[in-house]
């Protein structure tokens, strides 16, 4: 086809039948959601956590005029904690401004209990608290426990815009975002070998700015960008009273929280179509992260006297370098080649110093030197695709990667990866995509780390991200369209990682997943869709009690099944539109430990989430529509690390005892929508 750029004489093209829709349009929706049964965890991201009525309010508004001025606004779930408002507008082709406000609640548990009483950044115990060596001996524990909800809210404000001067090839854009996260989480704190799960007040603020200026030529584009991110933490440390019998004066503990930090990044990206069939693109990014928050004292334990520090703050600095250069060509009919070079580097320029250690505020230990970890990853990739016939394409590619790391036992690894694939269409109705990938990672340089105070590791341990590894992966994807309106799709993906040189550590991992999809659209007003998937994730590892050869083995086996159904039928009965959505996800996780001696096993951890939504929409008038909906959700989760765990179950762990959620939620929804 001739390119649409060749303009005809349009002087007689009046567009009389065109229904240009200037002015306002949109809808407003108001109603009630009644939660007959509500579950705390099921309301995790919506706020529908309690029984009762919730306001359902939202809407959309759009405006445009013949001058190209436009405005779009949307409000969603205004009556819920997950409320969200977005607005954007401008003069099309000249400028655009947008802004938004969003709240994301996250409800974890409402079943926790704690004896700790919060006073700012300090957690006290009740006055009548009696310390003991073990939780079951804490005589004041039971009557001191009070409820603890673990939830946070993220409130996000966003503002941005872009400006393209008329008849100009420049474009300017910016985005600003503020995220404030508040609420309560938990932090574990220990004194020697006795730990407590502590309520942690959360008050974090992050500002981000993203700005760019772009210049576009006929065959090239260049963009200069700046990204900045600045994190502030209102809770600078957490102090708590030690509920256990204190040794060596360790009656209190103090832990740091995430320090304030900032990151600035400049990026230059561009594209150059230097031949009709060849294009060069590149992105060069340079970033710098800083962190210089004042340290907390090495210990809160006054009996240890003053413990001097080499400096009052880290003055930490990370430089990031990210380069990516890609050449894409079509040198011959049907053949496309892509060559790519990648560099990712994290240069840790933080100074090293010797820091005295007061482990868990209990005693003066051996000093440690901080290690400024960094890495450099380089990869070169070449991929060729050849279309032998219109419906038959071959793929062949390879990548060589080199990873260098500082202050780790493996200085350098090399990975070579090759892949081949085939894509074909049969009888215009079946599409098939096959791909096989093989990769080998080798360790080219190991070293002994001679750093004072660093814990001695088992010399046979090979950490999985640093170990020699052989990986094979196969993916098969197909789709079939036997009739108009009917589509069937299926995927199978398999990946296996073998760590043949590893005696201690992860030795094997395998992941298999199969999915099927079916869609049927017998008419424009009726569509049905169903899907299902099965996944199995397995891994094996070996360990050693005495930092020697393997004397125990562990395995993990996850099985995950999902299925779902979605149907929409417009004007199903008279003028009534009907909709249905159902999903069911079930997972089981099995952990086994073979320690060459009779040992109690772990029960399977199971989770199941089911969701059903039904709705009927009926037009009361030309502009007014009513919607009646019903929603049901069910969550079951079992987790042996939490099930049965009460505050005093473990002698040296004062837990919040949240348990695991089993929730049901039933909602009845009635709303009116006015369209304008």
């Amino acid at each position, binding site marked *: *086809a001739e390119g649409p750029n060749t303009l005809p004489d349009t002087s007689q093209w009046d567009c009389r039948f065109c229904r240009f829709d200037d002015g306002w349009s949109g809808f407003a929706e108001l109603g009630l959601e009644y939660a007959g049964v509500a579950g705390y965890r099921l309301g995790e991201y919506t706020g529908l956590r309690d029984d009762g009525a919730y306001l359902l309010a939202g809407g959309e508004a759009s405006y445009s005029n013949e001058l190209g001025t436009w405005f779009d606004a949307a409000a969603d779930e205004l009556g819920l904690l997950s409320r969200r408002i977005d607005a954007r507008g401008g003069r099309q082709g000249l400028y655009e401004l947008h802004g938004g406000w969003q709240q994301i609640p996250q409800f974890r548990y409402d079943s926790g209990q704690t004896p700790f009483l919060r006073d700012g950044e300090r957690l006290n115990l009740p006055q009548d608290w009696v310390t003991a060596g073990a939780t079951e001996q804490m005589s004041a524990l039971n009557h001191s426990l009070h409820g603890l909800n673990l939830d946070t809210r993220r409130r996000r404000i966003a503002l941005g815009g872009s400006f393209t001067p008329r008849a100009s090839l420049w474009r300017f854009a910016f985005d600003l975002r503020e995220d404030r996260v508040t609420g309560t989480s938990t932090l574990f704190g220990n004194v020697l070998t006795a730990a407590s799960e502590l309520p942690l007040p959360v008050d974090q603020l992050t500002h981000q700015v993203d700005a760019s200026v772009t210049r576009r030529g006929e065959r090239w584009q260049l963009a200069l960008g700046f990204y900045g991110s600045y994190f502030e933490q209102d809770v600078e440390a957490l102090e708590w009273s030690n509920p256990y019998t204190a040794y060596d004066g360790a009656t209190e503990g103090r832990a740091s929280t995430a320090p304030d930090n900032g990151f600035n990044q400049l990026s230059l990206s561009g594209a150059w179509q230097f031949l009709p069939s060849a294009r060069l693109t590149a992105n060069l990014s340079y970033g710098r992260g800083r962190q210089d928050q004042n340290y907390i004292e090495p210990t809160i334990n006054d009996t240890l006297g003053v413990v001097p520090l080499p400096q009052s703050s880290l003055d930490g600095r990370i430089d990031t370098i990210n380069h990516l250069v890609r050449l894409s060509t079509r040198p011959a009919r049907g053949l496309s080649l892509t060559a790519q070079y990648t560099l990712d580097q994290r240069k840790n320029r933080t100074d090293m110093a010797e820091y005295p250690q007061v482990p868990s505020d209990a005693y003066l230990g051996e000093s440690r030197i901080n290690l400024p970890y960094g890495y450099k990853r380089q990869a070169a990739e070449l991929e060729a695709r050849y279309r032998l016939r219109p419906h038959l394409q071959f793929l062949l590619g390879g990548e060589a990667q080199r990873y260098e790391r500082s202050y780790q036992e493996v200085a350098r690894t090399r990975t070579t990866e090759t892949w081949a694939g085939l894509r074909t269409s049969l009888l215009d109705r079946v599409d098939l995509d096959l791909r096989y990938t093989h990769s080998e990672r080798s360790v080219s340089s190991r070293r002994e780390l001679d750093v004072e105070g660093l814990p001695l590791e088992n010399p046979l341990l090979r950490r999985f991200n640093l170990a020699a590894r052989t990986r094979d992966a196969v993916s098969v994807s197909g789709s079939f369209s036997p009739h108009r309106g009917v589509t069937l799709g299926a995927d199978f993906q398999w990946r296996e990682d073998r760590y043949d040189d590893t005696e201690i550590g992860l030795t094997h991992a395998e992941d298999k997943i199969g999915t099927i999809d079916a869609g049927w659209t017998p008419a424009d007003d009726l569509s049905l869709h169903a899907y299902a998937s099965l996944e199995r994730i397995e891994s094996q590892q070996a360990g050693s009690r005495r930092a020697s050869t393997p004397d125990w083995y562990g395995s993990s086996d996850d099985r995950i099944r999902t299925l779902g159904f979605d149907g929409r039928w417009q004007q199903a009965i008279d003028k009534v539109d009907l909709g249905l959505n159902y999903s069911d996800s079930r997972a089981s996780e099995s952990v086994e430990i073979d320690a060459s001696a009779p040992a109690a096993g772990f029960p399977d951890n199971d989770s199941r989430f089911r969701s059903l939504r039904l709705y009927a929409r009926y037009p009361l008038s030309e502009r007014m529509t009513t919607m009646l909906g019903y929603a049901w959700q069910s969550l079951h989760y079992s987790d042996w690390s939490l099930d049965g*765990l009460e505050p005093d179950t473990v002698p040296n762990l004062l837990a919040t005892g949240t348990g695991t959620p089993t929730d049901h939620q039933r909602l009845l929804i009635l709303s009116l929508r006015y369209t304008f």
Partner: protein
Amino acid sequence: AAAQDEAAAAAPAFSPRGADTCLRCHDDPLVHRIFDTPHGRRADARTPFAQAQCESCHGPGGEHAQRLRPGNPRPPIPLFGEHSTASVQQHNGACLACHEGGHRVDWQGSVHEREDLACVSCHTLHAEHDPVMSARAQPQVCAQCHRAVRADFENFSAHPVREGAMQCTSCHAAHDSMFASMLRKPTVNQTCYTCHADLRGPFLWEHPPVAEDCANCHVPHGSPRPALLTRRPPQLCQQCHSAADHPGLPFTGRGLAGGASPSAFVLGGSCINCHSHVHGSNAPSGADLSR
């Protein structure tokens, strides 16, 4: 001049009256929805309806719109028609003629381009709201191909995509990302820090695999374990820590709540019960990541 005339004569013909020709037959509400979209705004000189109207995108429709002898099949519209024979590249070329700048600058050579994806594989143009641009509908569009990822989001522990609080494009750039997995930022960690800036550091005491790649311990989409972990502690930690004493011990069901000896190595946060600052610590005495 003769050559130009010859070329003009050889070029496919446009319809006689543009959109008015098209809409005589295609008078369908679905078709008219184009006027509710930015493409239908004539005030912007760059839009289709400020230029060759329907044929800006669908290509010259002279042949398609011509009168036919009875029994003769109607030639297809060149682009974006039910029987259009143009290739994916030709279809995409029509979009890129206007949209190659900005976020699409790296489209050519990108993963989606190499996979022969058409712009209309994801975008619905004759709709007031393109589903792939909507927070709630976008994941369903992406899941048409990324079926395994959809299953991940159904897990007990998952980023809130199913709830509409996040979308695929919160982390991925579908058009132009040159970065691995089409991430918005150059690395996995830089992408994660856009929401989890508290974990960025640099910390006085760093945990090397954490600073290197969040995906060493977490999966990005969903997991049956809390915190989107790849595996469960203590086994997760013991894949990398096997010193003598407790890191090397096999922990079994004896340590469960109903077991013979309930253990802090198994219950609650397991290793995290003491080494709580697993993402890094800024406390001078936090070398063991406990402060």
